[in-house]
């Protein structure tokens, strides 16, 4: 039923789905981490903010872990080339993420204000650095990474941590951070009341406009400022292939070619802009759930826009265009893709079902009174 070509497209879709799952679910945790020291003025307020995500952030982070596992299994060479290439960036991401599990669990276990303030800033770093590194990674994927494959398909990477900070990727960082901030603030607005919710509303208003402007600017930049990539040799999409058996060219505006071939793809950026712009109106009217849906939609739209523009490329190489990885030559074997698809079809609906159940159990706003009544059981 599933031939190799179809499976590769499905698995590209599932990869996009997992990235979206991570961005929607853990995205607000990152955003709230960034906002924590600024939106919480007192210890109780900070505890309110922490407890809006305290019971659920761990499950959300699992989207990232699973994304790692799935990439390893379904797109091994992408996993290998990307992670070893951006070595320093990935370690920075990891070290920042280390602060989250311990930050959440340990912060309120000691009374000392110094201790608590230390972990508040730890959670801030644990939210900000991943948001920055991940957005930076997206930007660098779009411009291409300086790697090369030898005949044994061993990858060598030329470039260090600071080479990642070029202009376009830096713009992507601003796009990403403003989106994570908006998403976090929307969720916070949903889960809190009075002062904190009001402060969140201000963040939503500013970040939504900022995000849309930067997102559009990035679009213009992709059209005129940076090179895209295109496969120039015929590709047999249904056989096991070696990345080096193709030819690739680089050129201005090529990343927009897919919008000509598939005009409906334009819906992704359009939905992103509309959803991001309308979210603040719904939070203002206290339609928090709708606002969260819209903010999630903006998140997914932005990811689909980036992924769709690059399709079928997954990892273009700025150093040796022929080494670029596409969905046709970076995938796992036909059999592995089939097995993993079966596992995904069985387990992901179950995951989504019990995650929803957990959110239902933990529904409702977190208030300062709750914190004061349960100082030892809440985070």
């Amino acid at each position, binding site marked *: 039923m599933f031939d190799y070509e179809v499976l590769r497209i499905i698995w590209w879709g599932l990869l996009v789905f997992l990235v979206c799952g991570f961005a929607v679910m853990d995205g607000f945790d990152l955003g709230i981490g960034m906002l924590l020291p600024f939106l919480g003025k007192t210890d109780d307020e900070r505890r309110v903010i922490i407890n809006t995500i305290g*019971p*659920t952030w*761990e*499950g959300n*982070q*699992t989207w990232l*872990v*699973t994304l*790692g*596992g*799935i*990439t*390893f*299994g*379904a797109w*091994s*060479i992408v*996993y*290998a*080339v*990307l*992670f*070893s290439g951006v*070595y*320093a960036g*990935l*370690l920075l991401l*990891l*070290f920042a993420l*280390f602060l*989250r*599990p*311990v930050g959440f*669990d*340990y912060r309120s276990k*000691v009374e000392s204000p110094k201790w608590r303030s230390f972990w508040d800033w730890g959670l801030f770093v644990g939210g900000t650095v991943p948001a920055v590194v991940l957005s930076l990674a997206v930007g660098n994927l779009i411009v291409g990474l300086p790697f090369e494959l030898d005949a*044994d*398909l*061993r*990858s060598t990477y030329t470039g260090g941590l600071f080479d990642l900070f070029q202009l376009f990727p830096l713009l992507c960082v601003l796009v990403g951070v403003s989106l994570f901030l908006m998403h976090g603030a929307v969720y916070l607005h949903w889960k809190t009341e009075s002062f904190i919710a009001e402060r969140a509303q201000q963040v939503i208003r500013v970040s939504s406009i900022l995000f849309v402007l930067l997102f559009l600017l990035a679009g213009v930049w992709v059209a005129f400022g940076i090179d895209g990539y295109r496969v120039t040799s015929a590709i047999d999409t249904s056989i*096991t*292939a*070696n990345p080096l058996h193709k030819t690739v060219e680089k050129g201005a505006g090529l990343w927009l070619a897919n919008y000509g071939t598939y005009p409906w793809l334009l819906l992704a950026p359009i939905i992103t802009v509309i959803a991001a712009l309308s979210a603040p109106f719904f939070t203002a009217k206290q339609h928090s759930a709708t606002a969260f849906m819209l903010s999630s939609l903006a998140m997914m739209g932005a990811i689909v826009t980036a992924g769709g523009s690059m399709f079928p490329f997954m990892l273009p190489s700025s150093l040796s265009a022929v080494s670029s990885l596409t969905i046709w030559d970076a995938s*796992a*074997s036909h*059999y*592995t893709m089939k097995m*993993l698809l079966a*596992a*995904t079809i069985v*387990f*992901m609906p179950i*995951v989504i079902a*019990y*995650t929803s159940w*957990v959110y239902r*159990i*933990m529904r409702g706003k977190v208030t300062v009174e709750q914190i004061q009544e349960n100082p*030892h*059981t809440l985070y």
Partner: protein
Amino acid sequence: MITTEVVDLSRLQFAVTAMYHFLFVPLTLGLSFILAIMESIYVMTGRQIYKDMTRFWGKLFGINFAMGVTTGLTMEFQFGTNWSYYSHYVGDIFGVPLAIEGMMAFFLESTFVGLFFFGWDRMSKLQHLSTTWLLALGTSLSALWILIANAWMQNPVGAAFNYDTMRMELTSLSDIFFNPVAQVKFVHTVAAGYVTGSMFVLGISALYLLKHRDVAFARRSFRIASGFGLAAVLSVIVLGDESGYTVGEVQRAKLATIEAEWETEEAPASFTLIGFPNEATRTTDYAIKVPYLLGLIATRSIDEKVDGLDVIRARKRHRIENGMIAYENLQILRGDKTNEIAKAIFEQHKVDLGHGLLLKKYTENVVDATPAQIELAIKDSVPKVAPMFWSFRGMVFCGVLMLFIFAASFYFNMKRDAHNQRWLLKLAFWSIPLPWIASELGWVVAEYGRQPWTIANILPTHLSTSSLSSGQLYSSIAGFVVMYTALLVIELFLMVKYIRLGPSSLHTGKYYFEKQGVDHV
């Protein structure tokens, strides 16, 4: 060209991060089940003290769990960052259990762990109990899949080499799932986790009993830990994974090095209780041997031989020579896929391709290896004896000591007299580190014993790393050591703080410090 230094540093980093991670995993595995048992008793009997027990040991569980998550993240990404050629070469197989682990197990444990802590007042008793069981199930399932992945490194089944894509590809998922090495590994490792959880609860409860604090609470905890711990330690020892050491050549090499069996003995082989292995003379000095025991343990028979290092090394020569032929024809095939002769020869010799790759450490072209280089490869084809010999004995010593402690605790519990046996309580408390020592040594036996391979007989360690510089590795190792050590110190500080407080930290008003009128929180 990747230098030996890069390979050694990559191995060091993996060892450091894995061994740190494994400080927390066994306790998570064991304690989550103990929590589920305690809460089940609470739900069945309705007695509040069992809920307090679940919540207090749950607090300690949480402190440990956070570190497990922190150090676990590294493991999911480190194959890509530091072992990228490995990831490309076997990701098609190795990545599958990791991906399934994420979807089936990680989500389960990390989604329900929050509910375990914050859901007490939001759910029915039965719903909360289910949450705790699902959490425990999630931790053990995640161990299942990671051990399936690990067992595949030790005994790679269900996969074949594809010269188009220059990598190994999966041919049978059920083969890797039902890998006999995976099954013994799973039982052995998970049971070792249950022992760790039990020893932790037993030792800390013993401390409270010694101090005459919260005696009712401590006696019940002690009782559960001694029963569960005895069952677990028996499983670890009886179903010890030595029985998996007859499957596959690398596993047999491990067994021979563990036993320092330099030369194959007549069946059933004797077991070297203790001695001093000497790599230069290939003998064990001052050895004390127990006749027949090794043969019985390893082969479960009296007439099967256990291969000695002499036999294993002799087989290597043949396989390395075959591997050179496989490698030579692979090079021809890569230039000309239609060359039927090369294809036929390659197919015939490809099981030994990995042995050909062993020579890459000594000569880039493999086929031009000199006899001296081949000798060197043969010599390096099994791990060194002394580290294996001592790690294994250390592990077994800890295991036997714990068996004694659990058996004694269980016995005096049956007589309702455990709280009066001060020698036993002291011994239990001071033995808390034992399961950790045993687990770390067990990791050394399993993983150092796999050398010189990352994937047994398929991919040598020195080819598996990423193309990184020594400088990058020095900084990342320093980063990990500093971060992990700082966090470990903080974790231990909190552990000690809450262990000292005991159930008084629950603020129910019923426990020792609260009755003393001292607020220690």
